[in-house]
């Protein structure tokens, strides 16, 4: 145990995800030795992340303005919405450069253990979005891209139930199975089992 502010800093850093006690200690002593200007920049960045970042009115992604860059982009297809759990999932799908529609960030998944139900997620906003036309066009397809784990699958099932009543709306779910560029022999049983049961006729 160190004394005073240094230990406080280590404790705070140790609370961050992915940072263990050893890393926290290392970062703390790095900061202790850093130039005041560097510390100032870090301080500013931390300050701004709470004050400056807003969530997009339309999709719920992190944004610098009231509407995010993707939702402002008129070249993107407004009839296509990809539903994800977290803002970092938007980034993951964006990296594919395959998807030209828009997003909807739920802000998590159904997780009764953590007290997260449908009201804590941005599901109501999604239903409103589907009900309203954008530029005179209806939403045609919802791609559900929640995580393929217990909570994500439950959220997907719930969304499918809620979206059934919209006439003419196509609802799809991301496929799950083998990673590209991998060898069959290195796939674990669960993934390979899923890929087997989700096989398709070619």
């Amino acid at each position, binding site marked *: 145990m160190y004394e005073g502010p240094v230990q406080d800093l280590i404790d705070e850093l140790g609370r961050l995800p992915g940072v263990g006690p050893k890393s926290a200690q290392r970062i703390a002593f790095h900061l202790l030795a850093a130039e005041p200007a560097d510390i100032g920049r870090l301080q500013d960045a931390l300050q701004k992340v709470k004050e400056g970042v807003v969530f997009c009115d339309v999709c719920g992604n992190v944004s610098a303005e009231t509407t995010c860059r993707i939702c402002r982009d008129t070249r993107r297809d407004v009839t296509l919405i990809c539903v994800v759990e977290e803002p970092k999932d938007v980034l993951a799908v964006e990296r594919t450069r395959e998807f030209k529609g828009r997003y909807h960030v739920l802000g998590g998944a159904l997780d*009764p253990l953590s007290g997260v139900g449908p009201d804590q997620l941005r599901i109501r906003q999604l239903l409103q979005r589907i009900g309203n036309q954008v530029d005179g066009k209806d939403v045609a397809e919802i791609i559900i891209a929640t995580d393929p784990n*217990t909570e994500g699958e439950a959220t997907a099932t719930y969304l499918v*139930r809620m979206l059934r009543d919209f006439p003419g709306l196509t609802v799809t779910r991301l496929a799950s199975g083998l990673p590209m560029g991998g060898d069959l022999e290195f796939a674990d049983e669960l993934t390979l089992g899923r890929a087997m049961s989700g096989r398709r006729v070619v």
Partner: protein
Amino acid sequence: MYVRHLQVSDFRSWERADLAFEPGVSVLVGPNGQGKTNLVEALGYVATLGSHRVATDLPLIRHGSPRAVVRTAVVNDGRELLVELEITAGKANRARVNRGPVPRPRDVLGILRTVLFAPEDLALVRGDPGERRRFLDDMLVARAPRYAGVRSDYERVLKQRGALLKTAGAARRAGRSGDISTLDVWDGHLAKHGAELLAARLDLVADIAPHVAASYAEVAPESRPARIGYRSSLGESQPEGFGRPDGPRADREALEAAMLTELHRVRPQEIDRGVCLVGPHRDELELALGELPAKGYASHGESWSFALALRLGGYELLRGDGAEPVLVLDDVFAELDRGRRRQLAKVAAAAEQVLITAAVAEDVPEELDGARFEVRHGEVHSA
């Protein structure tokens, strides 16, 4: 298959131990508390990545050491594989096969298959239903590792649904309606994973039942016939015939539908009590001798024989699947009478490899003549 070599470092009481085995019988003899069981426990750990004695890994590491290492050479169909496991407290274990690291420790599952019979197994007959469910699930994983995933998926959904029921129940008692709009979703997932687990267990019981009955008749010929059967929490909704040797194979979709029906029926009670009342987590593997349940009616000797018959039944079943497992008999001869010892010796003598621990050499029937190891004062000597 057989274990050719076992080496442990900082495992349980052992700073270091080194044993070379041959196919056939090997007996570890030594007074109590010298670490015989620890050695076979190490082999069990390689086979299942778990201990038959404790639920966590910490007690496996020798007091004061950062990690334990188990290294074993297994010969299967003439091919030898070297498995190394490093068990570290509070961290992920590391595994190597033939000196090459494998991405996940569970990739070593299936290289060594053991059937271990130990004094703790009396709980299979006298203990809670959970012990018998674990017996079935461990067998499922031994036959097809995929079921480890099915089981953990089911447990996860069960936990989530349980949390939802609890909050809904609390809300109802407080006079509010509570949010159960997502309960249908969780019901669907519970039924899907639950039916998969249930179907696998029913088929397993159908497959293993004749082996258990035959093993019991061999071990305890003068006793009443032993029967096992699966009682699910589905009650009247369960389709007839599944889980019996002469019945049809379990139909997953029919079971899923039955589970949904039953979940719907008991929903008010579930919300009242805040617990999940339907699913494989409430099922029971029923053991009967003649017309009476084994639990509460079987004598001490009969309970022992039944536990042994379950293990031997599992052994026969795995043997039928191919790749004969290594039979491990940990300190069990002292608990059996002369006749039962003889019968067990007959089964064991026919195994490709059997490892036996005993406090006194006289407990081991002379039919089981083979290599002897003296275990004493933290050392192993070949006798």
